[in-house]
C-alpha cells in the first residue's frame, strides 16, 4: 500500500507541521509518495526537510516516491537550488527534472548540500565565505565583521548534525525578499537531518534532571536556552549559545524543531511563539536561522542601511 503525503504549496517552516502531520500518520512498511506537484514555492527549510523525510522513509521501508512540481519555474528553481541532486539518491523521482546548473544565481548562497562529516562543514564554511560576504554586507547592510560570525553560526548549525544526529543531513542558505513579514531582504540558513533528535541525544545526561518534564520540549530548552550538551566535557554547548548571541546581535531568529516540539528565539519583528509542544512527530532536527536586512533607526521611522 502507498500512502500519499502532500507537500504544501508554500512549503516553509510555517507549513511544515501540516507536512509532518501527514508524515506521522504513515505506518511502518507503507510506501510513501511525496506529492509536490502542486508546490508553488519552497523555502530552504522546506527543501532540506523534504530530504530528511525521504531519508527517514527509506530507513523505515521501501524507497519513497516523489512527484516533482508541475510548474516548470518551480521545478527549475528546485533544481538550481540543488534539491534534485540530493533527492535522486533518496526518492524514486517522477516527473521531468531539468538539468539546471546548481547555484548560479546570487540568492542561492549555498545550494542544498549534504553534511555527513567534519570535512563537509569545512567545505560549507569555505563556500559561504566566498559567496556570501558581499551579499551580507552590501545587500543586508551587515557590518563586514558580521559575515565571519555568519560563517561561525553556519558551522555550528552543521556540526549539530555531525555530532548529535547519528546520521547525515543537509544544509542550504538563501537570500530573498521577505515581503510577507518584513518587507526586507533576509538570509536564511536551514539545516535538517532525520537522526535521533535532541531528546534522544541528551537523554542519558539530562533526563534525570528534568524528571517528569523530560521530553522533546525540555531537551530543546536545555540545549538552546541552558546550553547543555550530551558531552560531560566542560566546554561543550558553545555552538548553540554562539548562534543565540549572533542572532540577538543582528535581530535575527533561530528556531529548532525536534520530535514533537519546536523552540524559537523570537525577534521583535516576528510573532512566532517561543515554545510549541505536542506537534506531529517528525524524525531528527530541523534548524532555521533568519538574519534580516539591517535598518537604521531614524526619528519618525526607520530606513534601510
Amino acid at each position, binding site marked *: 500500500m502507498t500512502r500519499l503525503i502532500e507537500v504544501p504549496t508554500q512549503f516553509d517552516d510555517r507549513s511544515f507541521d501540516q507536512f509532518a502531520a501527514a508524515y506521522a500518520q504513515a505506518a511502518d512498511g507503507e510506501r510513501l509518495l511525496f506529492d509536490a506537484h502542486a508546490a508553488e514555492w519552497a523555502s530552504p527549510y522546506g527543501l532540506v526537510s523534504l530530504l530528511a523525510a525521504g531519508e527517514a522513509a527509506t530507513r523505515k521501508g521501501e524507497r519513497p516516491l516523489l512527484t516533482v512540481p508541475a510548474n516548470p519555474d518551480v521545478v527549475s528553481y528546485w533544481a538550481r537550488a540543488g534539491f534534485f541532486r540530493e533527492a535522486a539518491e533518496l526518492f524514486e523521482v517522477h516527473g521531468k527534472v531539468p538539468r539546471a546548473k546548481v547555484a548560479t544565481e546570487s540568492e542561492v548562497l549555498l545550494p542544498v548540500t549534504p553534511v555527513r562529516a*567534519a*570535512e563537509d*562543514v*569545512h567545505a560549507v*564554511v*569555505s563556500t559561504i*565565505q566566498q559567496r556570501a560576504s558581499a551579499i551580507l554586507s552590501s545587500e543586508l547592510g551587515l557590518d563586514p*565583521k558580521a559575515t*565571519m*560570525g555568519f*560563517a*561561525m553560526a553556519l*558551522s*555550528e548549525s552543521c*556540526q549539530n548534525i*555531525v*555530532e548529535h544526529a547519528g546520521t547525515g543531513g543537509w544544509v542550504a542558505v538563501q537570500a530573498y525578499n521577505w515581503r510577507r513579514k518584513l518587507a526586507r531582504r533576509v538570509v536564511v540558513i536551514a539545516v535538517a537531518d532525520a537522526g535521533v533528535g535532541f531528546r534522544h541525544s541528551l537523554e542519558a545526561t539530562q533526563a534525570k534532571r528534568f524528571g517528569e518534564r523530560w521530553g522533546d520540549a525540555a531537551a530543546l530548552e536545555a540545549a538552546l536556552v541552558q546550553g547543555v550538551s550530551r558531552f560531560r566535557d*566542560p*566546554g*561543550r554547548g*558553545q*555552538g548553540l*549559545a*554562539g548562534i543565540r*548571541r549572533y542572532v540577538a546581535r543582528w535581530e535575527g531568529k533561530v528556531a529548532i524543531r525536534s520530535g514533537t516540539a519546536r523552540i524559537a528565539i523570537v525577534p521583535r519583528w516576528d510573532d512566532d511563539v517561543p515554545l510549541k509542544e505536542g506537534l506531529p512527530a517528525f524524525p531528527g532536527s530541523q534548524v532555521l536561522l533568519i538574519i534580516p536586512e539591517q535598518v537604521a533607526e531614524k526619528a519618525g521611522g526607520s530606513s534601510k542601511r
Partner: protein
Amino acid sequence: MIPHIMVHAVLQQAVAGFYTDLVTRPTGRAVRENIERDLPPATIAVMDFTGVGCLDYSCADEIVAKLVRDKVKVLLLRGLTDAHREAIEPVLAGAGLAVLCERADGVLEGLGASEPAPALLDELIERRLAARIPGGSIRLTAA
C-alpha cells in the same frame, strides 16, 4: 625561550586538505593535540592566528580553552581578527578562563574572564617578558 605556535601552519600539518578555517571539534582536537606534543607543561606560549580564516566557538573551546585549562600557564595570542576575538572571548569567559592578547599596537590586554587576566600580566612582568611602559600599558620586552 617562549614557544611560538603558528596556528595556520599547525592546521595544515594536522588536518588533511588545505584549510584556512578553524571549524569543527575534530579539527580543533587535531590541531590542539599537534600543539600539545611539542609544548612543555605549565609553560608560557605565544599563539599566532595570522592566516586563520573563520574560527568557530567549537574550535575556540577545543584549542584555546583546553590549552589554558590543561596545559599552559600563560597563553599569549597575536594576529587575532575581531571575529577571532568574538569566538574566543565568550568561550573563555564562560569557563572563567583568560588569555593575554597582543593588540596591533603591541599593547597586551586580557581576553576572557576579567578576574584571572591581571595575574597573567603580572606573571609576564615578573619573568621580565613584559614591562609596563609610560602611560601604564604593558608590552612584551622580547618574544
